């Protein structure tokens, strides 16, 4: 599976366009880790527990997007975008979306 946020895959030709695919996950950041993050917050700076949480979420979102692409018969996703949103109740949604294509 080729993943890129360019409009095409360098060195390949897009032969079929399979439409928009997306993957997202919602994770609560106020689980167990939150206590340590709260302590860390006193000093400010990087909140590693959250960085890790969001990186895991992003991986998961990409995996779901890839699964959709495979289901549509694609072998690449182009023009990928990410977005993170703060949802009520201290949860964060991480989303990845792009265009599924078949390249040769």
């Amino acid at each position, binding site marked *: 599976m*080729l*993943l*890129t*946020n*360019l*409009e095409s*895959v*360098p*060195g390949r030709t897009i032969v079929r366009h399979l439409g928009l695919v997306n993957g997202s996950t919602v994770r609560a*950041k*106020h689980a167990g880790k939150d206590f340590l*993050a709260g302590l*860390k*917050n*006193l*000093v*400010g*700076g*990087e*909140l*590693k527990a*959250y*960085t890790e949480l*969001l*990186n895991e979420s*992003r991986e998961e979102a990409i995996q779901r997007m890839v699964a959709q692409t495979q289901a549509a018969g694609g072998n690449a996703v182009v023009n*990928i*975008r*990410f*977005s*993170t*949103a*703060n949802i*009520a*109740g*201290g949860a*964060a949604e991480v989303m990845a979306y792009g265009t599924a294509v078949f390249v040769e």
Partner: protein
Amino acid sequence: MDLIIGFVVFVVLMVVGRVFGGLAEKRHFEQIKRRENDLRNILVFNESRPSADLSAREAQLVVGAVVIGEDYFKRFAAALKSIFGGRLTAYESLVDRGRREAILRMKEQAHAVGAKMIFNVRMETSTLSDDSNPKALFSAEFIAYGTALIGAPAT
């Protein structure tokens, strides 16, 4: 009595934020400058179409992300400054630090796969703090991502 305890807690939080938070930030900036210098050979572009002579390279998505939170001193300093408006230097350094760290992590990923160029770089910031709780400290996620072209010669 409650007032005194409240005041002591306030002073402790201010001092912790100012001294330890300030020190940590200073160290982080020094580290950022060093790493930026080390990764100077990785070229970053935000144009979406690499020139034709580069197009035969392998492409790989690279992402760098970091969550940075404020401390109580920054919050207090910013709240005070907001009365008069103008530059909030306490937050300027926070976002600068976050964004540069995210770019560095993206570059480090590119470096790990042997890429010398990253195209179509996009940056994003999103706040993570709980809006329903006004006492909660502010934190934000900074993301930088792009497509690394592997094997492209640095020019």
